[in-house]
């Protein structure tokens, strides 16, 4: 089983994901250009961060029309793993592979720093190896990461255990001061109902080695490896 890192014009965390997977996780990985259409059935799709199409119009709004998205939708529908990180998360909500939307940070500013997130559900393919309530530290770097959705969707997310990560303080408490961008209920990441599609604003690929501050991010990628399609 290998990984496919999708490259859109303007993606800029594609190399970082590639590095984390090939050098640190030590698993096969390849780049897939957005104009291509083929994804192998046994691949784990990674939609990396960056500014696809310059975030013009709306973050992710143009990327969703790229040829590769058709294949990704099919992949997702078949229950195969897809993870969208940062801009990748935005692309997934724009493509309706995940509910809700990501609006501008409540500070109206781009923000790049280390934060803590808590694993709220181990039901997703990418959190299978985590413990519930496990704390992870990883960086965020975004201007539009403020998760928002309507009440009924939030209820669904809660009922189906689709809220995967929430922002917390270093003690694991969900408090307003630990919410970096104004996200509803401190939401940092959600999955689809099936648990095979995950979107999150924090960057796990930036937290895969001690010299950069920690290795918590690796757990997400390695969880996906032990999934098997039912």
């Amino acid at each position, binding site marked *: 089983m290998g990984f496919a890192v999708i490259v859109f*014009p*303007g993606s*800029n*965390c594609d*190399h*970082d994901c590639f*590095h*984390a997977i090939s*050098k640190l996780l030590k698993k096969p990985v390849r780049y897939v250009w957005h104009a291509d259409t083929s994804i192998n059935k046994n691949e784990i799709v990674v939609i990396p*961060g*960056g*500014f696809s*199409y*310059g*975030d*013009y119009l709306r973050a992710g709004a143009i990327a969703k029309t790229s040829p590769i998205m058709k294949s990704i939708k099919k992949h997702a529908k078949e229950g195969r793993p897809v993870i969208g990180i940062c801009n990748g998360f935005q692309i997934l909500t724009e493509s309706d592979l995940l509910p809700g939307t990501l609006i501008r940070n409540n500070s109206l*500013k*781009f*923000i*790049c*720093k280390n934060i803590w997130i808590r694993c709220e559900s181990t039901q997703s393919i990418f959190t299978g190896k985590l413990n519930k309530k496990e704390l992870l530290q990883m*960086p965020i*770097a975004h*201007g539009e990461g403020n998760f928002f959705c309507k009440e009924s969707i939030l209820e669904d997310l809660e009922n189906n255990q689709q809220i995967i990560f929430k922002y917390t303080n270093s003690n694991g408490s969900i408090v307003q001061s630990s919410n970096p961008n104004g996200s509803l209920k401190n939401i940092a990441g959600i999955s689809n109902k099936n648990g095979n599609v995950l979107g999150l604003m924090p*960057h796990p*690929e*930036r937290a*895969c080695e001690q*010299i*950069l501050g920690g290795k918590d991010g690796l757990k997400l990628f390695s969880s996906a490896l032990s999934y098997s399609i039912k």
Partner: protein
Amino acid sequence: MNIEINKSNITLEKALEHGISSEEWEKIKAHLGRTPNFTELGIFSAMWNEHCSYKSSKIHLKRFPTKSNRVLQGPGENAGVIDIGDNIGVAFKMESHNHPSYIEPFQGAATGVGGILRDIFTMGARPIVLLDSLHFGDINHEKTKFLSSSVVSGISSYGNCIGVPTIGGETKFHSSYNGNILVNVMCAGLLSTDKIFRGNASGLGNPIIYVGAKTGRDGIHGASMASSGFEDSTSEQRPTVQVGDPFKEKLLLEACLELMSSDAIIGIQDMGAAGLTSSSVEMASRSGTGILLELDGVPCRESYMNPYEMMLSESQERMLLVAKKGKEKIVHDIFKKWDLETQIIGKVTNDKQLRILFNNQEVTNLPIDFLTEEAPVYNREMSKNNASKSSDPICKLDENDNLEESLLALLNHPNHGDKKPIWEQYDHMVQTNTIIRPGEDASVTRIKGSGKALAFTVDSNARYCKLNPYNGALYTIIESARNLSCKGAEPVALTNCLNFGNPENPEIMRQFSEAVDGMSKACIELEIPVVSGNVSLYNETHGNDIYPTPVIGMVGLIENHLLTAPQGFNNLGDKIFLISPKGEIPFPNSTPHELAWIKTGYEGGNGPISNLSSAKSVNTACREAVKNEVINSSHDLGEGGLAIALAESSLSSPSSSLGAIIRLPKNCTGRIDSILFGETCSRIIVSTDPNNVKKLNEIAEKNEVLLTEIGIVGEKFTIYSDGNSPIIDLEMEKITYTWENSLKGIF
């Protein structure tokens, strides 16, 4: 509009409007044997202005040392390149975007980032870091909040989008920049030493290809604007500021790097200041060739653009390249993949002329050498140093002032306060190499696959340079080298941005020349060559010149990326030492410049006197201590002196939770405020595990520096002078709160 404009009668008046002096006008007419037409006049104004021709600074810049066994490319190219071993080269350069950033701060700063990035990737290097040096006016000046927050947003928007981390910099506020802010951006990139691309236009008949964004009417005369002072309505100049498109730049970057691995091109150059004019002329000049351009092919964003506008436009995200004949399709296909246009707009000739065709008519025919090598060079008049001696700032301070209040006042000042509100707006981690993040003496980025790392710092000391340009500039080089040494990095080369006032003012020219001398002296002694740089003159508004502000960007090499040191204390109970030059009193009664300025507004006296050989010893000792893993932290003393350095090491500890319990040695005599806040040269505080003290002593002895134990890492911030009652005794929460709130409401 069409080429009819070329038929208009060009007079001296028109030339003067273009910034061409009457003397230069006569020179042009004499050399050509005719009057230039309108397009040609525009080309002269673009090539002969200060920004492109360095006409006032050239004769001084020659004094910089530019060679070492690591230098692969010195000044004169798009960027300098150094060799760091294992076939890895580092291309780097710093550039100013001062005038545009004052007129339109967001776009001015953003396009400043875009321009320097292009300088780096045109060399064949993938950009790995950005840093910036920002100088704004007084924090309470009515324009400062708007200008500073917009500049930071502009840098953030461009750098983040393109995916190059902004890993460090400096931000200072001073009334000298009220009417003329400074925005200097440095970029570095990595290349393979056998694949350095240069701005060459060689090979008769080789096609000249235009790539990237279309040409519009923006930025026409940008370079000339950057070559004059500000008068009244700068808003009228807003159309001369270009608008950046970082997404286009990202595509251009990827396309250019892909193209460079193809072997299809001869030379490449960014269309930066003075756009198509300077890129084509400079490439031909370097290769001793000529250029024939056919402007009908230039992709234009607007209708009816004439040759004058096309040649002078500074539209962003454009490159000019010379391909190998027959390989045009390779170029075209790679750019097409990245949704970018390519257009053949001319060819290399051998007549050493710049010839331009438009509508089947020749609209320009000028000798390349005359535009470049034979451009005017001035040895401008310099005043004699007759600065009257001003009294030392210590006189303005009351010896009995509360020292805790003084410390907190410094930490709450925007120049010393927490800069997170700025650098957290920059993506400083993308590319996953940032080992030491912003907010320290220097930032460190590792080079994947090599085991090596690079440390970067940008520094300036405008006040010291104002007091004495020679000493101030020399000090700045030493400080940069010290900052790198604190990280265990060997300083290997530097770039600079020389921001000064009006060169036609003899006093400014004196400042410039003396600063160059001071820098050169330090560079020679410390063996750190200058490999690239930029000069920004005419930084004045209504005749008020800025303080002389040479900004240094220095690069240091760490052979083993695991061996570096943070600035913050990180271990309760570690011992704290001061490393200082042998033969000097470790805690002298030096001048607390920054404290006096913050408290009273007064600036005067003399900056710290630097001794180059002791600077070298102190730096070497610190590097050895880092490399041998003898110390757990290191931080240099700068503005605000010992107390500020100790406070910063405390504030940089994990969650700002560790402080210092300091006991000043018994032999400290004189005013205590000058011991705590006085500014010196070549002093570093380090913290070490008690078990490593012996080894640290050996390193100090071997390098002939003084090592003085001054305290331990604790949970509070306490300083004792003598006796049992502390002169400063503060909880870390108090210090942290004061420091973190200094920029509140600004960014």
